[in-house]
């Protein structure tokens, strides 16, 4: 009984119920939505957001926020695209370390600004959001990387599959989620990130090197955004200096906030974030089926963030009142 109760009280249970209710509602109206094929469509929509959400989750848990991940995605994708264009003979897998390192480097830049100058991360990353986007234009001379330049093997990762007909990029995304889970729950670094976010004043007293943890978190977020960058090139087969990754940070924040990651730091689970990403994926896949134009997507994302914030607050409030009742 208590086990069932504790499962039902978890944030994840609420999201699962929302996903099922949403899919059933859409399925009643359009039975086509409840097929394996549409599951495939949903899963193909989410890998980039999934990876970005893992990055943003770590940052939010450490009580920071990173608005620049969309620009990091775009910059890394552009670096890789330029590499493929200038060195057509290069082995295609080299793109992965290049993209990840590029992203990590930009993420480290954010981290250094935040730690050295003690600046609020939201303003720093608002600045680097446009700084990195501008650099993307500069290195690319404002021209797009075309389909023919991206190696066929890389593009094939979004269609071919090693196992169960599940494309590579979906497997990579879930692999990243699994690794984030291990880091968050079973490593010293993970515990330090949670401790730092729960109470930044107490963290150094417990012997946590705040600057180091902050740097690592931003660098990891950058590296994951870089990985998302090369997967963007795989999924869409082009890199555009203005479109690639634009608005990505907002989709990611929406997913993470739905997933129950607290904006006040210290709270958030990988499972919740994954479910939040899946819920967003279901919504995105259902819109065209229901005949709702794609232009409504951003409004829905925005509304979802606001509602998730309100739910989050009421849950927290109930926790506080039940605690004080228990104390008296």
């Amino acid at each position, binding site marked *: 009984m208590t086990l069932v109760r504790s499962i039902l009280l978890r944030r994840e249970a609420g999201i699962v119920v929302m996903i099922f209710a949403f899919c059933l509602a859409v399925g009643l109206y359009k039975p086509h939505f409840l097929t394996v094929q549409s599951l495939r469509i949903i899963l193909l929509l989410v890998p980039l957001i999934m990876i970005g959400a893992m990055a943003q989750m770590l940052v939010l848990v450490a009580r920071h926020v990173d608005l620049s991940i969309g620009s990091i995605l775009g910059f890394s994708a552009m670096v890789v695209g330029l590499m493929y264009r200038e060195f057509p003979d290069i082995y295609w897998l080299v793109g992965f370390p290049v993209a990840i390192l590029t992203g990590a480097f930009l993420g480290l830049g954010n981290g250094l600004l935040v730690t050295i*100058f003690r600046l*609020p991360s939201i303003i720093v990353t608002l600045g680097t959001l446009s700084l990195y986007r501008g650099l*993307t234009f*500069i290195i690319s001379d404002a021209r797009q990387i075309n389909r023919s330049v991206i190696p066929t093997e890389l593009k094939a990762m979004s269609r071919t599959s090693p196992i169960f007909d599940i494309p590579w990029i979906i497997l990579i995304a879930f692999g990243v989620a699994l690794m984030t889970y291990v880091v968050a729950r079973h490593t010293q670094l993970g515990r330090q990130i949670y401790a730092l976010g729960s109470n930044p004043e107490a963290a150094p007293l417990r012997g946590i090197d705040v600057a180091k943890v902050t740097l690592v978190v931003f660098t990891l977020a950058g590296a994951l955004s870089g990985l998302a960058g090369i997967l963007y090139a795989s999924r869409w087969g082009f890199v555009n200096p203005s479109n690639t990754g634009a608005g990505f940070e*907002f989709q990611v924040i*929406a997913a993470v906030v739905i997933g129950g990651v607290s904006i006040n730091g210290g709270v958030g689970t990988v499972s919740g974030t994954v479910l939040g990403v899946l819920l967003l994926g279901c919504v995105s896949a259902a819109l065209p089926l229901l005949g709702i134009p794609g*232009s*409504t997507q951003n409004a829905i994302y*925005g509304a979802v963030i*606001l509602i998730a914030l309100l739910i989050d607050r009421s849950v927290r409030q109930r926790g506080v009142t039940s605690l004080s009742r228990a104390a008296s």
Partner: protein
Amino acid sequence: MMNSTPAPTRELAPARPTWHIVLVRPETMTFLLLLFGLVGASFLSPFFLDAGYILRSFTLTAEMSIVALVLTMVVISGEIDLSPAANMALSACIFAWVQDAGVPLPIAVIVGLLAGLAMGALNAFMSIRMQLPSIIVTIGTLIFFRGLAQVIAGDRSIRVPDSFIGINNVMIAGIPLPVVIFVLVAILLGLVLGTTAVGRQIYQIGTNQQAALHAGINAKKIKVGLFLVLGLVSAAAGIMAASRLGSVRYDLVLGGELQMVLMAMLGGTYIFGGRGTILGTFLAAWLLVIVSTGMTVANLLPAIQLTVLGILLIVAIIATNFIYARTQR
């Protein structure tokens, strides 16, 4: 008795000379940068010695500058709002959409302004009533407002009637009307912030909200008021932009939140609240016009301008934090 030994007096630090106090004010830095930028730009192109040219350039960002003035007060009170640019777009879209549907122009303007007020009220409800951090709330409303604008306008641009076009061509004593409005709003807000009780209370709330509450200041009421004013002014700015451009699209001033925050930061407003002046933001708005038209005259790509704005934001906030850390004692 009278001859008890006097209490040991603490050694007073010598008063800092006036020039020292003036020099370390961030507005002074902004002003020097402005002069420096003007001189540098006039070497670049003699256009910059022509006041008319600068005034005409200023009309391009006058709407955002007006909003930045109010945003400065919000930041001083310890909150932030990233949604005004999206608010401008949505208010302008609602205004254009309503009058396109046949509603008389004055009523359409009022509808647009009310929409902006409602958006400010949503921000106030979420951040003040629900006590959620305004920084994340306004990211949510930023996406939401911009998304609603996209729903209303789609991919098309909505035209506004010819009689309404051209606010930037209306001249008052040779000065474009948007610039006149900007100056008047700056004077008004400067007086409110600098000379009234409400102004002092805004500084107190931003410096230490707890202490302000104990001093009997109704912090919630003042902050709600600031969000409402910001929503209303953003809507007015959006409608002004519609008049200048002649048509409205959902991506009106896309990314404008960066420039608004940048103006406040460049003017020396402290991001954690409690410090900053309208004068600083006023000067910073001119500085940004010089910088961006300078870059346009120098034939720099818009992308490079984006990079420069990003760097400027980071440098400005580092410099402001540094100055305040030095003068804290």
